[in-house]
């Protein structure tokens, strides 16, 4: 029974190929252990011949290609005409387009703060309670994903408006296994061991960490990830939630302590490559390259799962470079917290094709086809982990599926003026030598000013 269906898909592929300028079908139907049945069922239920779908997202170059490939399958089985446009200034452009009344059908937001902002202006369309229920049931830690995608609309009613797709894990430390072998170091499994290893490397006359906060206009964000990660390792998740919503003030001693934990790594001259002065000025994209220089300038680099894109060309993950989980304190009983981020897909211009695409994102196939390409992680429990691009990706996916606590990048949840403003600049000030208490006070002042 399956064979004619595959043939149908293939025939459709031939017919519509001319219409599709971008995006190709990287895997032939029926191969690669993907859930092709879910694609066929979806295609049989949705005929979108003559419909158009426009999609606007933050992914460029290679990542855009992965997404276009996924959209190509959607176009194949439904007959819809689709297009994807990526932009590095999505934050501004989507607001301009929506204000002027010419938004695309669907948007992928790089962070929830922007989506919440767009929702409060009434630009996002409800995804419905059945989609919310689906996420609760099918995503690992599902209800937290629903909460993160639920925003207040123009009239203040809470509604499920954002569907998480493509998640990244931030609680990772990257290292080079052969350098560890050469020096006789072991991968630390607790925060105590990590700190001991840091001291050990310094004692051996080497530099343990590469830390770079530079990122153009967004300089400082890598440090906010550090502080959030350390917050989750020193305080229970409830405290983290209060901090993110400002129910607990930013200058609370518990937050200041977390900032100082970061300082214990980044503000000690011998701990960082180039010295503490280089922390704020090194670009986060260049920072990991210190591990690969000859001789190595540093041994470890804490950064999210996307960073291998900036490793030197030809680096083989798992062999030339690898990661370990940024460990938790053994002495504090806080489980294995994981910090992450992700992109959110929302409907900005309702249409039959847009609704159908949201349905498509629920099929295991849509996740699996992305998993076969680099840089995609999913909390979808129904997707086959065997389809992950590499063992490294699978390892990252495991961290995501096995997390006892998952918390979203806090700076993305805070109001833009803080989470994408004073928190960033405050951390640059802190790295430059300002006391943690003073930095926290100033951030809290800026938060009060926004209320």
């Amino acid at each position, binding site marked *: 029974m399956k064979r004619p269906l595959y043939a149908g898909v293939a025939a459709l592929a031939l017919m519509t190929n001319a219409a599709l*300028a*971008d995006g190709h079908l990287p895997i032939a139907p029926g191969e690669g252990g993907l859930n092709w049945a879910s694609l066929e069922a979806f295609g049989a239920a949705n005929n979108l011949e003559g419909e158009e779908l*426009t*999609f*606007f997202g*933050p*992914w*460029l*170059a*290679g*990542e*855009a*290609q992965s997404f276009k490939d996924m959209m190509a399958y959607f176009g194949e089985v439904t007959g819809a005409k689709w*297009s*994807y*446009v*990526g*932009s*590095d*200034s999505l934050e501004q*452009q989507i607001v*301009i*387009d929506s*204000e*002027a*009344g*010419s*938004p*695309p*059908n669907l948007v992928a937001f790089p962070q929830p703060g922007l989506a919440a902002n767009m929702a409060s202006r009434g630009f996002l369309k409800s995804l419905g309670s059945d989609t919310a229920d689906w996420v609760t049931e099918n995503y690992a830690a599902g209800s937290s994903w629903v909460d993160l995608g639920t925003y207040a609309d123009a009239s203040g009613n809470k509604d499920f408006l954002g569907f998480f797709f493509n998640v990244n894990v931030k609680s990772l430390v990257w290292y080079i296994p*052969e*350098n560890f*072998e*050469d*020096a006789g170091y072991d991968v630390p499994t607790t925060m105590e061991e990590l700190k001991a290893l840091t001291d050990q490397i310094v004692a051996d006359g*080497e530099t343990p960490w590469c830390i770079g906060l530079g990122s*153009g206009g967004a300089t400082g964000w890598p440090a906010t990830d550090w502080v959030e990660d350390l917050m989750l390792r020193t305080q229970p998740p409830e405290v983290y939630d209060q901090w993110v919503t400002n129910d607990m003030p930013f200058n609370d001693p518990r937050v200041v302590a977390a900032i100082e934990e970061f300082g214990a790594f980044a503000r000690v001259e011998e701990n960082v490559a180039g010295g503490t002065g280089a922390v704020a000025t090194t*670009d986060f*994209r*260049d920072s990991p*390259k210190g591990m*690969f*220089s*000859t*001789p*190595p300038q540093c041994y470890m680099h804490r950064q999210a799962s*996307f960073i291998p*894109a*900036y490793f*030197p*060309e030809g680096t083989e993950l798992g*062999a030339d470079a690898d990661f370990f989980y940024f460990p938790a304190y053994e002495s504090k009983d806080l489980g294995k917290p994981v910090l992450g981020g992700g992109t959110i897909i929302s409907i900005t211009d309702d249409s039959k094709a847009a609704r159908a695409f949201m349905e498509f994102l629920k099929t295991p196939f849509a996740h699996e086809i992305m998993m076969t390409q680099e840089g995609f992680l999913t909390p979808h429990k129904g997707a086959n982990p065997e389809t992950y691009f590499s063992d490294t990706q699978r390892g990252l996916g495991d961290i995501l599926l096995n997390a006892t606590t998952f918390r979203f990048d806090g700076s993305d949840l805070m109001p833009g003026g803080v989470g994408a403003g004073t928190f960033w600049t405050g951390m640059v000030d802190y790295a430059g030598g300002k006391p943690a208490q003073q930095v926290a006070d100033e951030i809290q002042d800026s938060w009060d000013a926004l209320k």
Partner: protein
Amino acid sequence: MDNIAGTKSSLTWVVHISVALLVILWLLPTIGLFVSSFRTADQIATSGWWKALTASEQNLTLRSAAPDTQVETNGLFVIEGQLFDAAQEAEISAWGINSRAIDAFKPGDTADLRKGGTITVQTDGSYRMENTEAFAGKRGQRVFVVATVPPELTFENYRAMLFSDENATGMVKAFFNTLTVTIPATVIPILVAAFAAYALAWMDFPGRALLIAVIVGLLVVPLQLALIPLLKLHLNIGIGKGYLGIWLAHTGFGLPLAIYLLRNYMVGLPRDIIENARVDGATEYQIFTKIILPLSFPALASFAIFQFLWTWNDLLVAKVFLIDATGQTTVMTAQIVELLGTYGGNWEVLATAAFVSISVPLIVFFTMQRYLVRGLLAGSVK
């Protein structure tokens, strides 16, 4: 001052030298970018562009062949090979097998491997690994070398941008889209501005001085102010996002400068010619087309260059008025930004793209530059 004619001032040399210095200083970033466009991403990340031009001593991490290439002869397992690529001519001055001691050995020395066996590396990068047992594992041995490497430049960036399958179609499409935007967006404002400038320079009507003042005043209004209101207007009157919209926007944003430049130039034309024509019975339109336009050619050309360069390099106006979610109307600048990647780290692409994108404006500039200087001077100096 009796040497004013005939002898050269002794200060001439100072002038020449300072001009040369300024030119070099001014061109330095461009030269750096140009050299960078021939380097790989890793080279850009690890060393400055000035080091790309001469042979330099570098520390490199290389790897021997994997154990599955080993050959057994008389109970001795041997892996032989060359650390460098075939085309590369480098000279090793020291080497090591531990990242903590990368220059522990001299060429020709033999080092004991941690997992058993020995390795010998020669000056030219050839090596020989020996072991009495089979080499295990999947990967070759890391070898660190201190080597003098000749300069290495590559056309790979240009090939990837212009001829590779994934980028070429997009770049060609963007190139023609940009031309579609640029040419009308240069011609339309010149047409309108020439008429307006003539009227403001040579026709008497009440409120003329005020009108000129308003236009000059518009020069200081930042165009960012008008983006959203103008886009809303376009959508309300049904133009939407597209070529017509961006032509109108570029025309509007370019007009104040165009009128100002052309009016100043036309005002400087000799009054006698125009009055003669009037006496001979020429209409205003005839004066404009037969006398003013031919005489104003340098000013028209210099403004055309300005407007062409600005619309060619524009990203902001294109993103607001042209590029929609269908992706069919991408311009060069937007295409280049896309090549930079999601986190914007692909510097080699940026350098290359800058020179690809710059080539057309350079051709335009060099074919018309003699008018640029003349037009600007004639407009400003009486």
